[in-house]
């Protein structure tokens, strides 16, 4: 954990101090176009996206610069079966990376870059559900809250290729080696269970159950995603 945080910090410090040497800054905004492209191209059987960052931003000087990426999803589901056993589910992901990259022009149209990022990778699913149980006389609503949360920190080394089509528009793609350390929390908690319901259902264990687990993963990710890059100013 500490190692990862300090490496993120050092990347940042390094990127800012490096930035002082040149004064021409180029701002690049990238949009993950894989989803869009897959409507037109069909790579059968290939996983079409493995880069969670919908949008990227780079602030580049002559040799390299700061890079940031952000992505997320948010799904809300409202499940209401006829039996009053409902559930409101929220499923969200957040992916953030920040780092430094170096780049080299190969020729007029192609450039090559490589870099290091600190990575945050979070997934959270939560459901607030209503279940009805007998208390001996009638049905009583109790709330069941369940959660699965993954909080990951890590680092990645990237290398990529950029095709500079027009002065202001490019396409790029990158391969990554990603290490993530994830804390996983899962569990269920019964809320507002009346004593009568407990008495009527003596066999049921209404105690909260929460588990914490850890996971380390190392992934090699092939360059499947295409980013359309807009250069916000001319250099």
């Amino acid at each position, binding site marked *: 954990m500490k190692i990862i945080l300090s490496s993120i910090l050092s990347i940042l410090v390094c990127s800012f101090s490096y930035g002082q040497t040149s004064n021409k800054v180029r*701002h690049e905004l990238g949009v993950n176009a894989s989803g869009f492209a897959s409507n037109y191209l069909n790579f059968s*059987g290939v996983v079409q996206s493995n880069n969670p960052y919908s949008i990227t931003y780079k602030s580049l000087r002559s040799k390299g610069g700061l890079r940031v990426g952000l992505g997320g999803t*948010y799904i809300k589901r409202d499940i209401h079966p*006829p*039996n009053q056993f409902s559930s409101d589910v929220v499923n969200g992901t957040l992916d953030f990376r920040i780092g430094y990259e170096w780049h080299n022009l190969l020729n007029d149209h192609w450039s090559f870059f490589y870099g290091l990022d600190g990575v945050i990778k979070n997934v959270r699913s939560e459901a607030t559900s209503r279940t009805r149980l007998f208390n001996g006389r009638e049905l009583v609503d109790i709330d069941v809250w369940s*959660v699965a949360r993954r909080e990951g920190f890590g680092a990645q080394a990237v290398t990529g290729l950029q095709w500079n089509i027009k002065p202001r528009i490019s396409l790029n793609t990158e391969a990554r080696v990603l290490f993530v350390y994830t804390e996983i929390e899962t569990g269920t908690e019964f809320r507002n269970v009346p004593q009568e319901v407990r008495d009527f259902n003596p066999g049921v264990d209404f105690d909260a159950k929460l588990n914490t687990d850890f996971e380390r993963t190392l992934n090699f990710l092939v360059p499947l995603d295409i980013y359309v890059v807009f250069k916000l100013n001319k250099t």
Partner: protein
Amino acid sequence: MKKILVLLGASLALVACKEQEETIRSAGPQLPSKLYSYVWNRSQPTFTGNSWLRNVRITDEKATLGRVLFYDKALSVNNVTSCGSCHMQSKGFGDGKALSEGFLFNETPRHSMHIVNTGANSRFFWDGRSVILKDQVLLPISNHIEMGLEDENLLIAKVDAIDYYDDLFEEAYGNGLVTKERIAEALASFVGSIVSYNTKFDQVERGVDRFTALEEKGKDLFNNKYNCASCHGGKNFNAEWGETAFSNIGLDAEDTDEGLNGRFKVPNLRNVMVSAPYMHDGRFSTIEEVLNHYSSGLKQNANLDWRLRQFDPTGMNISPDEKEALIAFLHTLTDYDLLSDPKYSDPF
């Protein structure tokens, strides 16, 4: 400069988040006034009466109860998943995903199996860890990834509290008492009633239809030249008994999943064309990839089945024409009646 950055930040935040909202609502279970018939017709050709049958006697009432339980999300701890979430009729009772999503969107470690003719199974799951269907059907409910309802007393209390089960238990068992055994038996009755016996292949066997030349060629390759039938044998295209029902087909040189001592269940190939992706980890998304594996992708795993060792070390070298014929034959194993029969559909 600052403005640009603020703008950038704002657009970043907006574009980076994909939001989606979805509401799932339905009316009560819609059951026919005259029960559908689930009881097997003994002349249906695809059965070998297996061990689990000793414990279950399918009746239409039990299977009807089982159908409602199968599709009822209340059987998961947070009312989010039912058996039907991962076993969808339109996909041959598989779910079309490499790995399934459980009650909290966590992935299952293995690919969901397409359910068909369980009566011809000697064991259940990819690693065969369950032997009796009546025990097997309760495992997903208590599984911490699939449905998360670990406390069987809570399962009983929940089912007991739902009004429409009163009549369903009454009809199936003579009184409304909800027990774990009854839930298991009803689910097993429904699952066991999911039978396929009316594919084109069956119709040809019965002499009421004919294979095309291409299908005939595919069948011949399947049974003779490539001897797929040495594993995917009989009318269920699986291997029915004991240890030989499991084998290693050289997907990896080193196993990433132990399975049953490095081997996995030979899956029934009925409805295989609608139940992609394939293999215990759902690694192949098309049938072409499966055939490419058998043709040239074999890895020399220490447990690689002897029936596959007779070919080149990398595989059978199936030609493009032969692949086409094999696929045509596999298409004749799709049971369109089963995929659309209302008696297996979601009643909610």
